């Protein structure tokens, strides 16, 4: 067999839940994956370090200037960079603070002006380095990761869906949240997760980001007219995972 593909995993501002998803694959998938790839650096799980790797998996958003150099170093050492999860691909939950200006005072009180507390808006890692592939979601879809790595090992270009979550709800015959008196963001949010949230009885929060051409105005309209939201709540709804998309739309 030819040489294994070397993989390194890194984390920035995040909960490290996407990396934990790697351990949830079970014996057969994980051992199968290890037939084709070799982890050469993965701080959360191993002490070994590497100077170069074929694929860098990067979790977490870019929210501090001091993280810039570490991102650039990863880019220099990696042939392919994959942004893993919502934080890395769109800023994720960390961007929920982006519209505020008093977050430090709120959490740290009178110590907020200490210089080591400096933290800026949460941005995707593509704000600093070129990203080759993006695995959206909070957490990322571990089956999608296996598929993308599989595609890359076999020289195939990975494809991430660009249709809304509503399509997946229809496919699995989930009753629409709006029909049940709830709300949802599925109509503007990127599919590929299998739409577990509406199937489990909660709204889609758009953790995979928006589709390429979301009809955003319709989202706010339907939140007011069908879900009974105030205009303010409807306008703020998409701040949870898609704050950085809103900035682009407005």
């Amino acid at each position, binding site marked *: 067999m030819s040489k294994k593909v070397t993989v390194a995993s890194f984390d920035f501002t*995040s909960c490290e839940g996407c990396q934990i998803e790697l*351990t949830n694959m079970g014996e057969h998938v994980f051992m199968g994956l290890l037939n084709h790839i070799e982890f050469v650096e993965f701080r959360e799980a191993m002490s070994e370090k590497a100077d170069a790797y074929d694929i860098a998996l990067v979790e977490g958003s870019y929210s501090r200037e001091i993280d810039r150099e570490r991102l650039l170093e990863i880019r220099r050492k990696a042939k392919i960079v994959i942004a893993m999860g919502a934080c890395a691909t769109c800023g994720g939950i960390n961007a929920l603070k982006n519209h505020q200006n008093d977050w430090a005072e709120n959490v740290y009180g009178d110590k907020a002006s200490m210089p080591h*507390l400096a933290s800026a808006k949460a941005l995707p890692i593509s704000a600093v380095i070129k990203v080759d592939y993006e695995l959206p979601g909070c957490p990322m879809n571990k089956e999608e990761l296996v598929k993308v790595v599989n595609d890359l090992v076999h020289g195939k270009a990975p494809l991430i869906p660009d249709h809304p979550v509503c399509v997946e709800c229809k496919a699995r015959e989930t009753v629409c949240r709006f029909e049940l008196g709830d709300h949802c963001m599925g109509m503007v949010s990127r599919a590929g997760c299998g739409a577990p949230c509406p199937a489990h009885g909660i709204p889609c929060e758009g953790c995979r980001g928006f589709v390429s051409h979301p009809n955003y105005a319709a989202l706010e309209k339907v939140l007011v007219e069908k879900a009974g939201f105030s205009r303010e709540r409807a306008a703020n709804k998409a701040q949870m995972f898609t704050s950085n998309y809103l900035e682009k739309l407005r």
Partner: protein
Amino acid sequence: MTKNVNIHVHHLTRVEGHGNIVVNVNNGTIEKCEWQVPEAPRFFEAMVRGRHYSEVPRITSRICGICSVGHTLVAVKAAEDALGIKVSEQTVKLRTLLKHAENFDSHVVHSLFLAAPDLLGVPSVFPLVATHPDVVKAALRLKRFGHEWGSLVAGRTTHPTTCVPGGFASVPTVKAVAELRRRMEQECLPDLLAVFGVVKSLAGKFPAFERKTEYVAVHHKDEYGLYDGDIQCLMPDGSKEIIDVHNYRSVTNEYISPLSTAKYAKHKMGSYFAGALARFNNNFDQLHPVAKEKAAELGMKPICFNTYLNTAAQVVECVHSLFEGIRLCDELIAKGIKDEALVMPSKHGTEGAALIEVPRGILFHSYTFDKDGMCVNGNCIIPTNQNHGNIQLDFEKLLPELLNANKAEKEIELALEMMVRAYDPCISCSTHYLKVDFKR
């Protein structure tokens, strides 16, 4: 005695999040001995303001990918406390079953994937794939089982979907719970006992170290405290104090240390310990009989003052959680599982507080909501935060002992790394963490 030591472990490996160890010993004088945390701050308490109560647990779940079940459950409970929501017996039972799944799942990761390599003298679990394939495969099966167990109740384990204020958005079928229960006994228990045998054979490799400290854990009158109860503080002399969750700030007393960058906590002593060892020491009598037997096989009894044995206490808790899981499944199967409507809020405007035991120790959340159910303020106090002071004081006792024992620099570095790993720190639970620029 070792005279000169210069250790700078930047971004310690095999822990969740980022931490550094810095030690300077110059001609026998300890100039610096510090545990530092450079994790990026994330400001969750600011972010929840203005969000609807149904969204808040989904937001704070993202504090931690490993204990996202615990963060979800405690946020749900705090919201319910604030909004005057009282949930059904079935909901409490399902949540308790879920809590056991999370602790089991996380303890498997920490004890087998993160801590065990130190005891076997390898840098990670990956070399063990070749040398100990059966153990690694059993560990991967146990991890996957914990994930499937939690997912059955929570929808998924990394950022649960079904756990919401007022109950469950959807519940598992009796058939699925019965299948889980069958697998617990027939698949999971044999793997767990096999892996326990390996842990037992390595038990002699846990370093000997003791420091008398305070142990803080959830205490419940009817069971080993995990999902609910009061705060219990255990002093080294065995005396105990019980405190209501609404007074949690009188226990945590958060402060900013000039030596470090993370918020610290202290109660009656200079620091306290939260985590599996704190639970074991506080609530040993309520462990399942088989778990007590396994503790005895590992040579553990309360009060155990050896920090390194927190990992062993986690393994004991895995046994306890599996047997408790079987009991809870049996009770759910016997009673049947109904689709229940969510319980709606009955009040607003007052602070609600809740506690829970996540794998790494006692966790507190509190929130206040306005008349529209929107969050006015929140506070989250994470176990790893509560442990920082204790890690530092353990370092300060351990380092002179290692120097006096003539240990080489590399041995000292490993002993300190293992000490931090023993706490199973979860550093990106970074609600309160500050960042720092380090002297190189």
